[in-house]
């Protein structure tokens, strides 16, 4: 039987489908890739639905999209509590202790992640125009995400957070002190992010480099190395200024967002 491969998540789909069952990406439109190789994250059609485990997720709206999750019994999702838009009263909630309380407080990250358990419906959204990025993670994958970009993750993902290495990265990287890390082991998982503006992804070959404005960084495979690189800029006024760019070195995927707060100059 012929199958259609989703260009975004590589999942196989039955012929005749117009959206990927795993990530919701349209299957009947051409991929949009810039001349330099940045692929636009698929623009999910309003009311697109896709599946994970025994549950479904539906994306609603286009300017600030809402991810509505219909949880089956035995399934759960975790999230930062302030992204929850609404829930059915009967959806049980619990808390996931992230550990590292003081470190997370210093890093401006929430101590506790909320967990919603099926059965029932719960919906999430963030606070500015942008796109929901759906990232299905195959078993044995590690993905690093800038803090406060994470919308929700499924129960099969293991959550941790990693300190961004290097003082220059921390001070000038624009991504804060920590990144969220999501790992899959035996089972696949599904991660939903919110990118401000439009989201683009590039897959770097081993040793290939790209320079990214630190505020624009959204996610990367953990195999991608990130370093803050100083760029001197003389202004002729009080000696000059410096700006920092994040140098990403492959192999792996890098995701960026087109709307960001600039952190990179001093």
């Amino acid at each position, binding site marked *: 039987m012929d199958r259609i491969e989703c260009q975004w998540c590589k999942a196989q789909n039955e012929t005749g489908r117009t959206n990927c069952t795993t990530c919701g990406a349209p299957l009947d439109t051409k991929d949009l890739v810039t001349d330099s190789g940045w692929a636009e994250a698929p*623009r999910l059609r309003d009311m697109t639905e896709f599946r994970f485990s025994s549950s479904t997720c539906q994306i609603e709206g286009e300017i600030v999209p809402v991810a509505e999750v219909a949880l089956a019994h035995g399934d759960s999702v975790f999230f930062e509590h302030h992204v929850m838009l609404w829930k059915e009263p009967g959806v049980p909630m619990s808390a996931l202790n992230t550990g590292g309380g003081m470190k997370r407080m210093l890093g401006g990250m929430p101590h506790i992640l909320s967990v919603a358990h099926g059965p029932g419906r719960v919906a999430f959204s963030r606070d500015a125009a942008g796109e929901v990025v759906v990232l299905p993670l195959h078993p044995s994958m590690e993905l690093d995400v800038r803090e406060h970009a994470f919308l929700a993750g499924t129960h099969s993902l293991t959550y941790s957070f990693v300190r961004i290495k290097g003082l220059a990265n921390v001070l000038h990287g624009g991504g804060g002190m920590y990144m969220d890390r999501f790992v899959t082991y035996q089972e696949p998982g599904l991660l939903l992010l919110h990118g401000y503006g439009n989201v683009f992804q590039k897959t770097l070959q081993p040793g290939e480099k790209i320079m*990214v404005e630190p505020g624009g960084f959204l996610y990367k495979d953990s195999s991608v190395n990130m370093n803050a690189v100083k760029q001197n800029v003389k202004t002729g006024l009080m000696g000059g200024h410096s700006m920092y760019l994040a140098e990403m070195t492959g192999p792996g995927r890098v995701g960026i967002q087109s709307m960001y707060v600039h952190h990179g100059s001093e």
Partner: protein
Amino acid sequence: MSMPPAQGAYTCPYCRMASEGTDGACPHCGAPVDVRRRVSDSGWVEQPPIRDMARIRFSRSTCQISGTYVPVAEMGLHDDDWVYFSHHVLLHTDPRVRLGNLPMKGGWKRMRAGMPLIMMRAQGPGHIAFSADEPGETLAVPLHPGRAIDVVEHRFLVATGNVGYQWQNANVWFTTKDGDEQETHYPVGKTMDSFAASGGPGLLLLHGPGNIFIRDLAPGERILVQPGGLIWKDQTVRMFLHFEYPRGAYWFSSSKWQAKTVWLTLQGPGRIAVQSVFERPEMSGAVYQTSGATTQRW
């Protein structure tokens, strides 16, 4: 305003440049060629958004626009071409692109006016991309030699190397007094940027929050716009403030203090462009000094 001689079968209604019109988008400004011109009853022309992945050509380089909420302008620079930009709009670059700084005069004045101190240049070959920090549209303004336009501060995204850049005082201000408090307001910003091409056609990219509309004013024709809504104007267009005081039922609502409206009058001839997202000027206190202005009390 002088126009370049027509060299193709198609003249873009938005940038007025000639081309073959066969690529689906104007190669000079990226406007789609196969859409009907949308004009409001009052004469505002809606600037059609540049389609995702449309290419604009300049010199031997290209500019590709991607995304729709906060579009990205990705330049594919040829060896001989360079662009300049304010450093905070840089999104990504490949390591081959040589980054440097563009000498700027008047650093202290720019700092006081809240303008970026640093203007950077990027020399090809390689790819480099830019984006703004709010939802809106990218506006490409091709400039043929001799054409100059004035742009409101913070709307500039990137320009090609042959586009000259200057800035000057906008000279649009008013002072309010509320008790002992005195404050000077600059509704279009303290300064305005001016861009002019020399030695060949140039390309200027701007970012307008919301949607963008353009209008050609006849000689002497006036229109009132919110000062924060202006994006750019031809240098032939005059601008000055206009204060309106609506009639009030009581002396304290007679609007001397609170209910006044601050407009920017734009007087032709020439083209203007406005954006649909803007901030209203602050209203507290009575106006007692202004740059050149007119007043209407209803």
